[in-house]
């Protein structure tokens, strides 16, 4: 599949990296040669220094036989223009990154389809939705949903130490999972969920029955939507309060979008250092939101604004370090839910170690969104997300493939691969050892990085 990416910025290079690892033919175009040479030395792609809006340039990049054209330059109008041009020149599918909420509205979609732009992506909006989701499920680190009914879910939950006996009377619920092996948990609590991976410090473990869940593990559960409550109870997260008061530091575009996505019932404050920006924010945000002019690292100010009483603290300043540190400080103060925007991919692991809570990365969100779009188009299998060091992929079971021949237990799948759940006839089901896969099942697979290729032969 040939994919042309216009714009070698953060999202563009990240996408190029991911797609080239999937053996796609990636052509990256950008007028800035310095940006390209950085990428060209590391990745198996073709980098061409041309202006994405130049017709001859697009032809040179081979747009006439491109299967997908992704416009992710920093300029919205340029993205729209070059995506439209690419479509006219023969690209099969076009995607443009935009920066305007109006364009995303369903009633306006048609204008862009007429221009030749099939899909629009708005990373800030996607990120804002993820912030809103994770604020509502405050006890979950991250959540992904699969299937049309969205009833197969993947959750990551941080395991905490059990409290000493003395505290128990106060009403801190027990974590019923820590200290038990998966086999024991299965026997005791039934098979309502499936532990597909465990992230222990910076290492990812594909668990088997004898793996024990330890304190401070980040556990990935796959479950039916109805069973989320069971997981919450067993992980001892019943005491997580519903988020009623939240505070955002940083008043950028993402904060405005998050403000719109968070429910009205939530009381929200935004702290922003620039007075001018504060005035703008006042016009753009919902009425219930309180805009506060001040530095985000001003602890006195934050304390005045009820830092300790918050249920959620969201750090969205342009500075990664500040976001991480602010979240650590908020945790110290007893805020249960903290969300930090971290744009530098190298910091992601570190943020995990520092117990920052949920980490939002616009690039990853945008990239996995485009992945999913590819999945919908014509590719049978596609890596969708990278969680910890593991890849999550959705496979469609083909007629007569090896997986249909026997039950999952007897397949002899390689180590480091875990079939989490599947969607059969639109319904979500978990995959266990006794499950027999059938043609047409969509199986969600969890596997260690680099194992995907080996799985192909089981599904083809």
């Amino acid at each position, binding site marked *: 599949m*040939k994919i042309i990416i216009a714009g070698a910025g953060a999202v563009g290079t990240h996408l190029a990296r991911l797609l*080239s690892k999937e053996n796609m033919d*990636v*052509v990256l175009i950008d007028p800035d040669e310095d940006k390209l040479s950085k990428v060209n030395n590391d*990745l198996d792609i*073709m980098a061409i220094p041309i202006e994405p809006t130049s017709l001859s340039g697009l032809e040179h990049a081979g747009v006439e036989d491109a299967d997908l054209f992704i416009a992710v330059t920093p300029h919205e109008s340029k993205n729209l223009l070059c995506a439209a041009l690419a479509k006219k020149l023969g690209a099969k599918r076009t995607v443009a990154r935009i920066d305007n909420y109006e364009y995303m509205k369903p009633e306006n979609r048609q204008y862009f389809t007429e221009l030749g732009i099939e899909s629009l992506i708005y990373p800030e909006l996607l990120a804002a939705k993820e912030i809103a989701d994770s604020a509502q499920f405050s006890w979950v680190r991250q959540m992904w949903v699969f299937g049309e009914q969205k009833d197969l879910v993947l959750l990551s939950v941080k395991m905490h130490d059990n409290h000493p006996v003395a505290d128990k009377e106060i009403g801190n619920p027990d974590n019923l999972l820590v200290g038990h092996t998966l086999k024991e948990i299965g026997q005791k609590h039934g098979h309502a969920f499936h532990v597909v991976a465990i992230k222990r410090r910076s290492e990812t473990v594909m668990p088997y029955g004898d793996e024990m869940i330890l304190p401070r593990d980040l556990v990935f559960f796959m479950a039916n939507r109805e069973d989320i409550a069971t997981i919450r109870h067993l992980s001892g997260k019943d005491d997580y309060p519903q988020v009623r008061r939240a505070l955002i530091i940083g008043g950028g575009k993402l904060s405005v979008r998050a403000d719109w996505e968070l429910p009205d019932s939530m009381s929200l404050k935004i702290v922003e250092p620039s007075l001018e920006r504060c005035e703008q924010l006042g016009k753009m945000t919902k009425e219930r939101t309180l805009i506060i002019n001040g530095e985000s690292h001003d602890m006195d100010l934050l304390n005045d604004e009820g830092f300790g009483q918050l249920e959620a603290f969201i750090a969205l300043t342009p500075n990664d370090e500040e976001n991480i540190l602010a979240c650590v400080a908020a945790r110290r103060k007893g805020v249960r839910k903290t969300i930090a925007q971290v744009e530098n991919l190298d910091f992601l692991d570190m943020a995990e170690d520092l117990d920052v809570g949920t980490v939002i990365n616009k690039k990853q969100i945008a990239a996995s969104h485009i992945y999913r779009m590819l999945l919908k188009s014509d590719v049978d299998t596609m890596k969708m997300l990278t969680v910890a060091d593991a890849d999550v992929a959705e496979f469609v079971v083909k007629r007569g493939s090896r997986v249909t021949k026997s039950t999952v237990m007897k397949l002899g799948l390689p180590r480091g691969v875990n079939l989490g759940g599947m969607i059969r006839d639109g319904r979500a089901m978990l995959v266990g050892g006794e499950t027999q896969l059938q043609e047409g099942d969509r199986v969600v697979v969890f596997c260690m990085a680099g194992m995907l*290729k080996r799985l192909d032969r089981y599904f083809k």
Partner: protein
Amino acid sequence: MNWKLIIKVIGILLSIEAGLMAVCMLVGFCYGECFYPFVWPTLGTCAVCLLCRLLGRNAPSSMSRKDGYLVVTLSWIAFSLAGMFPFLLSGSLPDVASAFFETMSGFTSTGATVIDNCDAQPHSILMWRSLSQWIGGIGIIFFTIAILPAFGVGEVKLFAAEATGPMHNKVHPRISVTAKWIGSVYLLLTALCIVSLLVCGMDVFDAVNYSFVTTATGGFGTHSAMLHEVFHSPAIEYVLSFFMFISGVNYTLIYYTILRGHIRRFFHDAELRCFIIIFCSITLVCTLALLSERTDFAGLTIQDLPEFFSTLELSFRESLFTVLSLQTTTGLASCDYTTWPIMLMPPLLFVMFAGACSGSTSGGFKCVRWSIIFRFVRNELRRILHPRAVLPVRMNGQVIQPQVIHTLFAFVALFTGSLFIGAFVLAFFGVSPDAPREIFDYEDALGLAMSSLSNVGPAMGYYGPAHSWAILTPLAKWVCSALMLVGRLEIFPVLVLFTRSFWKR
């Protein structure tokens, strides 16, 4: 340094060599020769492969830049070490230095030989020499980039280390596909060359061998004598000239011309023009010089005209063949050019140095660099007249980054540096001190160093196409082998291994 991965990659590469040896074993078997000199090396190489694969199992698949450079250099050395055993076991070459020299000369597609009488060698050994050049010509690594991704090894870093030269353009977004296309062009050229030679009346074995060494711009022959004395066929010489020329052209350009039909692009390429200008002008000079030596213009009459034209044709054919052979660094010889007038030696030395196009199988300095230097110097002259002019160096319509020009000048310095250091060492230790002056001279030392560094094959003076290099001392053979390797990899990938910061953590 990811040693496990390096060992694994070298193991994979060596399995190719084992396969090639098996082919030669088969050739020996078919001709009813004693093929056991290939049995043990084949088995041994297989064993080493398995050992490498065993040692390198579960290697982390991330290859750093340093690993890439190390793999490239090490693989050439490993290939030459493994490939010298057939020569030693068959008794074709008695000592390790000679056998290593011969193999390195093969894998770097140089073509300098230390075998005095090729005609007396068994077919399997001759085939082994040609095959080593053929696989070395396209670049062992480049050839394998098409295969390596199946093993999940970082081919990007290998490509960066192997495809040196100032500019490289891919024909496809993915390197492995690019490598496959370039490989197909190479196969196509080889096949065409075999067919053309068969049509001209060569026998199958010679046709295959000469095609292998011509498309690889190598130059190992199956006969020690001059081509004209062996075949007496002008057609063969013209065919070989043509294929030497094509093999000296950038393969990306050939791909676009033949497989994509971009004919215009072929004739507008600045590097190719530079190549054509150099070889045409030197061919012209040689033809005229030979003609004037061979005919007496003052006594020319109408009756002499047919003879005059046949002399003209002969001079032209010999000049064309020799200039192309030396410039594309093939090193085949249809006649002994060392007997030509002395004034032609500097131009011939120059074409040896000049080389053909980048991205081809040829060695040497490469025309793309001449072209850039020419444009750069022209700009500098223009700047004297227009001190405030902004003058970017353009080539094929693209502006060349200053960084590329800096690298180019570093390359010039290193190339000439290696040349002179090689010449000094050879002048000291080239032959044993009691050898007569006719056999070894300071010019010969320079010629040997130039021929090795540019991967040409024959050199000047005594070491021209008429004689082998067998007379050199073992030390001189090692030095020449090193120069060939350095020249083949275009210096930087080898020299970078000798920097302190390469080995620092």
